């Protein structure tokens, strides 16, 4: 007789004959979808459950070893516990993308069950095995503290907060998605189950660069349960790409692969188990070729061409005034070369999509940063009118730029059309790491000059980006790196050359900061060196040069009335100056909106239906909280409460295109469209005496577009972007060289949601610290060497005290109630501020990220 394994799950005795990871049993057999699969390697903690009172990763434990044990998942919490966690996490702002949250809840519960009044330190230790990439942990720790207090009876749940009758701009708004994310019933694509659904997965290249000689699929096809094996021959148009269509859906027989993420064939099977078996039965004959693994190699004359048109993917020349002359006449000049690494987004939710035949085409349930982008790429692949493809966002478990390109969506659509059934494609964690575009690795030489008073005169720089195997968003990312390499100052002589080269490394593309993390790291470091030469403090030199309203930015744009960089500098002055030899400072600016002459439009439609206002706007909420922000805009404009406003999410069939979640644009660009539509609705509402039912069936559509000038436009003061956010960060080290505190002062205009913005800032700062100190993406001949657990992501026990400060001015932009967006800028100044702090401490200039010879690098080395 077959061995059986019996254990208790959420109070019910369960028996299985299969020995498999408990995670798979809980998700696939019991459909307990709060147990998230973030890595299946034991590294991320999203699948944390409680076993015999201990927090355990369910991907590690197996059904066989779980015999006799008592298992609890989020679904099995008592009602009292559920309410406590929902309220505490919501009110503290612990929830962003939400993918880590049920795991955090279970780790928190295991701790509270043992220690009803945990200290901050104890909570940090309890969360050590759980990664959060959004929040910076602080809000989660506060959430667990408040939960514990509620469960002890020392704090109360205030139901009005979640109800949200007062929900306007600036209010302590309880996010829309808290409950479903905390309790784990909210659906990400991998949680979708459909009648007749089957599974597909790509067999990917073994080598970064190799010719595909042959593909042997016979054995796989003979396996019962295998429905199809697709190759490039089955793709109507084998090229996709966010902007440039240079990305092969699959590498055809006879062609050459460009990176290890390349798909060679796509297997479709009835079950996950058969799928995995079938993939192993596919045999591919390769002719291994020497890969192009660096910018230098890519630039060599005799370099193999990664793409037929050559290895230079994109270049930009941004110039104004006469940098050469200005630098020659400068009192002080600093030239320095800097190097920054590829960085992995490490969003907690690996790429996943479900596609199924729909009407005269296909529908895709997706985790991405723009349903219309995904629709466009799929329609290009299929050679269809875009309307035949419908894309709808499920919950998105983090993106940070890494989900702008199609990954699982297009191959799911292809497979669904082939087998005429719903198909789910979910990436493994390593597949995700190997496939999606990273932050570009940069090598750049920056020359900055100033006069005897430290007033900047000119900048000359040359920026080289490794864009890896595919263009992805190389063009705009490189462009932002160039346009923002000048910093938020006011000097008028710049000569900036940027080049993005193809290599056989994994592709690089959009990542929070969009090229600016790289170039402002270099610039801000040079500023410190100039300050030293002039004999003034790093704070002083920045303040003397800081942009202010009415002054002209180095790109020629006149700074608008809302500009508050100086206010952010003043906000951190005392703390910077009171920590001499221990503090570093850096400023940054970041565009909000795509700008540069492109038709960057926000669109929103409001429909009064069943006595509620339904909001339709295809703007992906990737965890940052824009869905809530839009509802707050409606509430602010109409005076309605949260319960009367329904955000219908991003669905290309019913919601108008409101652009990509990219460039910190949703709050401002889509937010203004929402405000405009709300204002129209409110007018009618007032005419109807405030009775919404009288407007039943009415629709209000608005489109927001504030034109900008294209790069190099022949006007004296080109307007590149609708708005810029500004920030100053101060990093303070302790005696051992550990980051003790970070003060992050931000000008992002009007703050729409004070709790959310803190979480955005804290999470952005921690990401910036990782970039500066611990995160790396080592490659060996083009092959990623890191796994999720060894990327160097900061964990709860490593976080410093992060103080999020926002300065709000009286003068605001006339859009979206004056909000400017916070998404990216929070990540930008942290790394140079940390670098400056180390320079202040030991006077060693660290020109490479992650920085060498720090407390953190020594720790890494010591244990190797």
């Amino acid at each position, binding site marked *: 007789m077959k061995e059986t394994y019996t254990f208790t799950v959420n109070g019910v005795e369960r028996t299985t004959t299969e020995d498999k990871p408990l995670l798979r049993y809980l998700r696939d057999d019991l459909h307990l979808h709060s147990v998230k699969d973030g*890595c299946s*390697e*034991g*590294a991320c*903690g999203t699948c944390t459950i409680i*076993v*015999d009172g*201990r927090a*355990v*990763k369910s991907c*590690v*434990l*197996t059904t066989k*070893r779980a015999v006799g*044990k008592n298992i609890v998942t989020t679904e099995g919490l008592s009602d009292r516990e559920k309410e406590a966690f929902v309220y505490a996490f919501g009110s503290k702002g612990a929830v962003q993308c939400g993918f880590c949250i049920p795991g955090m809840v279970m780790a928190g519960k295991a701790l509270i069950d*043992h*220690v*009803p009044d945990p200290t901050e330190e*104890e909570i940090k*230790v*309890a969360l*050590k*095995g759980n990664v959060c990439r959004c929040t910076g942990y602080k809000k989660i720790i506060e959430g667990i503290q408040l939960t514990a207090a509620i469960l002890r009876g020392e704090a109360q749940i205030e139901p009005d907060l979640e109800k949200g009758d007062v929900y306007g701009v600036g209010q302590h708004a309880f996010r829309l998605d808290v409950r479903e994310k905390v309790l784990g019933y909210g659906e990400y694509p991998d949680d979708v189950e459909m009648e007749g659904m089957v599974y597909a997965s790509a067999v990917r290249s073994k080598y970064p660069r190799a010719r595909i000689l042959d593909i042997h699929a016979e054995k796989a096809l003979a396996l019962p349960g295998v429905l199809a094996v697709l190759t490039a021959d089955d793709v109507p148009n084998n090229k996709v790409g966010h902007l440039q269509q240079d990305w092969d859906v699959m590498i055809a027989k006879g062609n050459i692969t460009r990176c290890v993420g390349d798909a060679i064939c796509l297997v479709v099977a009835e079950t996950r188990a058969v799928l995995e078996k079938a993939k192993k039965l596919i045999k591919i004959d390769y002719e291994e070729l020497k890969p192009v693994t660096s910018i230098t190699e890519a630039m060599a004359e005799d370099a193999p061409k990664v793409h037929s048109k050559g290895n230079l993917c994109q270049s930009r020349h941004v110039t104004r005034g006469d940098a050469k002359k200005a630098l020659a006449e400068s009192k002080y000049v600093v030239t320095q070369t800097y190097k920054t690494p590829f960085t992995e987004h490490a969003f907690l939710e690996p790429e996943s999509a479900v596609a199924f035949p729909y009407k005269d085409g296909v529908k895709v349930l997706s985790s991405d940063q723009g349903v219309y982008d995904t629709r466009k790429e799929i329609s290009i692949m299929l050679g269809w009118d875009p309307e035949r493809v419908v894309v709808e966002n499920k919950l998105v478990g983090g993106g940070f730029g890494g989900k702008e390109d199609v990954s699982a969506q297009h191959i799911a659509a292809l497979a669904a059309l082939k087998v005429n059934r719903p198909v789910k494609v979910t990436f493994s964690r390593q597949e995700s790491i190997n496939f999606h575009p990273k932050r570009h690795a940069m090598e750049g030489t920056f020359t900055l000059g100033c006069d005897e008073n430290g007033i900047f005169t000119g900048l000359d720089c040359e920026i080289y980006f490794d864009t890896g195997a595919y263009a992805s968003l190389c063009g705009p990312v490189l462009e932002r790196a160039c346009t923002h390499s000048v910093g938020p100052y006011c000097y008028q002589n710049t000569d900036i050359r940027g080049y993005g080269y193809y290599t056989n490394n994994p592709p690089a593309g959009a990542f929070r900061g969009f090229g600016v993390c790289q170039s402002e790291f270099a610039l801000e470091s040079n500023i410190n060196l100039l300050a030293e030469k002039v004999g003034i403090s790093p704070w002083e030199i920045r303040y003397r040069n800081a942009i202010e309203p009415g002054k002209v930015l180095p790109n020629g744009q006149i700074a608008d009335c809302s500009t508050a960089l100086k206010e952010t500098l003043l906000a951190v002055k005392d703390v910077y100056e009171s920590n001499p030899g221990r503090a570093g400072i850096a400023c940054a600016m970041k565009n909000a909106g795509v700008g540069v002459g492109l038709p960057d439009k926000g669109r929103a439609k409001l429909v009064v239906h069943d006595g509620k206002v339904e909001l339709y706007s295809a703007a992906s909420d990737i965890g940052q909280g824009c869905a809530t922000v839009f509802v707050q805009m409606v509430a602010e404009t109409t005076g309605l409460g949260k319960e009367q406003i329904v955000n219908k999410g991003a669905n290309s069939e019913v919601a108008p295109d409101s652009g990509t979640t990219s460039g910190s644009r949703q709050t401002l660009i889509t937010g203004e469209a929402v405000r405009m539509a709300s204002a129209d609705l409110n007018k009618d509402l007032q005419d109807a005496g405030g009775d919404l039912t009288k407007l039943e069936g009415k629709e209000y559509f608005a489109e927001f577009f504030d034109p900008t000038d294209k790069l190099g436009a022949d006007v004296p003061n080109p307007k590149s972007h609708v708005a810029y956010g500004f920030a100053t960060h101060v990093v303070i080290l302790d005696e051992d060289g550990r980051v003790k505190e970070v003060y992050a002062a931000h000008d992002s205009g009007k703050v729409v949601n004070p709790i959310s913005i803190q979480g955005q800032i804290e999470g952005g700062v921690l990401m910036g610290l990782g970039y500066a100190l611990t995160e790396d993406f080592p490659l060996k001949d083009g092959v990623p060497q890191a*796994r*999720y*657990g*060894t990327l160097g992501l900061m*964990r709860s026990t490593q976080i410093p005290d992060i103080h999020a400060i926002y300065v709000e001015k009286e003068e605001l932009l006339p859009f979206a109630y004056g909000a400017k967006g916070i998404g990216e800028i929070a990540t930008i100044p942290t790394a140079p501020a940390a670098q400056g702090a180390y320079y202040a401490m030991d006077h060693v200039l660290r020109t490479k990220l992650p920085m060498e010879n720090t407390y953190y690098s020594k*720790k890494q080395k*010591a*244990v190797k």
Partner: protein
Amino acid sequence: MARVRKKKVAVVQCTGGCRRQTEISKASGNGCQQILETKAGTVSCEYGCLGGGSCIEACRLHAIYINAKGAAEVDPEKCAGCGLCAKACPRSLIRITDAEYNIYSACVSEDAGAQTRKNCETGCIACGICVRNCPMGAVSIENNHAVIDEEKCIACGMCAMKCPRGAIRDYNGIFTVREAQVGS
């Protein structure tokens, strides 16, 4: 029910998997030292627990006992992590660790794999499966046995699950079974 906060706990880095040839008298409080000196009834592994009970004698909380295999084992519920047992062990097999690192390497044999396999049912043979499966890169093989770096370890238990020899243990008794749980 609230339990006491626990900071430290002792773990014995041997599970007594070597087949002991003779019963050892535990009458003397200095049992282990005596065994070492007289060589009487010594276990075949020269790195393993002697089973003489010096640690038991030293422990004031009665948190240590000799398990079915004749090796000392700590009851983590009773242990306060004071470290007296660690001092008493002549082979330095007892390590005081943080309570949250419940996964530990339970063998410190420096013998080559083949020799350990001959001596012991549960000794580490330095096969490296744990090293390959650790998501954090926290496990390494040093002197022919697995060593876990607590700086990197997140106590996920993967190494304990994958160890073909049961040489990496979970003192919470979830990923690996505690001797006490099999009813010795």
